[in-house]
């Protein structure tokens, strides 16, 4: 009897004598980890920026430097460049953590997997996409983007890129479990990105011709809100499939 009481108390002491992890603290820890990793690889983070600048610079060479022509296509071209520049980083969003077993630790953590996935997407967006958006004025200048359109372009990007990152996180988690995926992620993501690009480009084009541009931006916001709620859940389901092997 005494040993029973002791084992009950012993069991209780293992449980109560801990510092439980708060949800907020857990997300902060994951963000800090991802930021430190991104900082350690900061050389690699410049590659998408460099790529975007080079591609943007190629257009005047390819199409001729006519200012009116460049100005007409600048908004759409910049959107496409951003989407393409996002692809390589999206591919590797979960791969490293799957291979080194970190995802297994996520699975057993007290935090909901969907929340960890959402935090990962936020960290990913801040480290790989935000620099692209910051560089937009420079890229706009390269393509003779009318200055009045620049704010609308940036708002459209601020809505469209998180949406694409959330979609991409689900697809990246699905492809991470496959051994040979190659260009699969790009093939899966680009068609789904088409409606997003249409709305974002629509807003920019409307602003450029002086028409109201708020409707496409509202659509993007609605889709973004829906994605913030649903994508982490789908991403968590996909991660569980990936860890199963």
């Amino acid at each position, binding site marked *: 009897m005494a040993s029973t009481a002791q084992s009950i108390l012993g069991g209780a002491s293992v449980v109560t004598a801990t510092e439980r992890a708060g949800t907020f603290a857990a997300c902060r820890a994951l963000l800090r980890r991802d930021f430190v990793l991104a900082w350690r690889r900061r050389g690699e983070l410049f590659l998408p920026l460099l790529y975007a600048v080079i591609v943007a610079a190629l257009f005047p060479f390819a199409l001729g430097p006519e200012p009116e022509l460049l100005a007409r296509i600048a908004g759409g071209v910049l959107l496409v460049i951003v989407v393409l520049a996002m692809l390589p980083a999206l591919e590797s969003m979960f791969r490293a953590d799957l291979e080194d077993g970190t995802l297994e630790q996520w699975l057993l953590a007290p935090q909901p997997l969907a929340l960890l996935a959402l935090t990962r997407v936020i960290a990913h967006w801040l480290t790989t996409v935000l620099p692209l958006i910051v560089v937009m004025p420079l890229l706009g200048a390269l393509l003779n983007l009318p200055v009045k359109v620049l704010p609308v372009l940036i708002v459209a990007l601020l809505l469209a890129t998180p949406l694409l990152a959330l979609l991409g996180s689900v697809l990246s988690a699905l492809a991470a479990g*496959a*051994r*040979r995926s*190659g260009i*699969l992620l790009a093939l*899966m993501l680009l*068609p*789904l990105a088409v409606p997003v690009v249409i709305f974002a480009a629509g807003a920019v084009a409307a602003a450029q011709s002086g028409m109201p541009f708020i409707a496409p931006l509202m659509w993007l916001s609605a889709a973004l809100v829906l994605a913030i709620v649903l994508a982490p859940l789908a991403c968590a389901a*996909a991660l569980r499939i990936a860890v199963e*092997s």
Partner: protein
Amino acid sequence: MSRSYLPHWIHWLGSPPNFYRFAGALRPWLMAIALISAVVGLYGGLVLAPPDYQQGDAYRIIFIHVPSAWMSLFIYATMAVAGLVALVWRVKLAEVIAMECAPIGAAFTLVTLVTGSLWGKPMWGTWWTWDARLTSELVLLFLYLGVIGLYNAFEDHRRGARAASLLALVGIVNLPIVHYSVQWWNTLHQGTTVNFLDPARSSIAPSMLWPLLVMALATHLYFFASLLGRARTSLLSLESGKQWVRALVGGQPASTTGAPT
């Protein structure tokens, strides 16, 4: 794990050798009725139905284009439902059915897009336009291709089927977009003409409506027949080590369960 809330026959059908025999028996009938209906429907549409007062005879491609479009959506919904069963309950037959829906659905979507393009040239003057319906139908094609590609990227077929099923479920948001695109946006594509809930209120002439509905029947039956055939082949290759497959190939008497000896 007992599933006592399911009818006994569903449980019976879920076993691969039972499904193999059942599908093999049913398939020829479905295919035969499908072919007969197709002949009847095409005759009604190409010969019997009068020319359209606006488009003349060019509209007759509707009898292939519209049923194919309906199938492209119906097959995706079937794939998503089978995929859901595969994900939640891990039923092997559901995985096979979901994955074999994808190529058939992709084919119907391609037919829809091509026939639509052929129709668009005389009617709108252009082979293609980026309006809401055409774009969302093209996205549907890419979703099918994505499901096929993802499934084939996995070495473990069961995990691959579950991953591809999750992709199919994520993409299901496209289905209402395709269907309601002509109502929500100003599109080049014409609006809804066939009212399923009350066909008499459709805005299409009855002489054109009945061949269309017969063609819809034909394509549905063709899809089921094709799906049963593909699922049988897939089951044979996935279960190739099992006793029932070896008995089938070798002509020995098979046991009624799917258990290996």
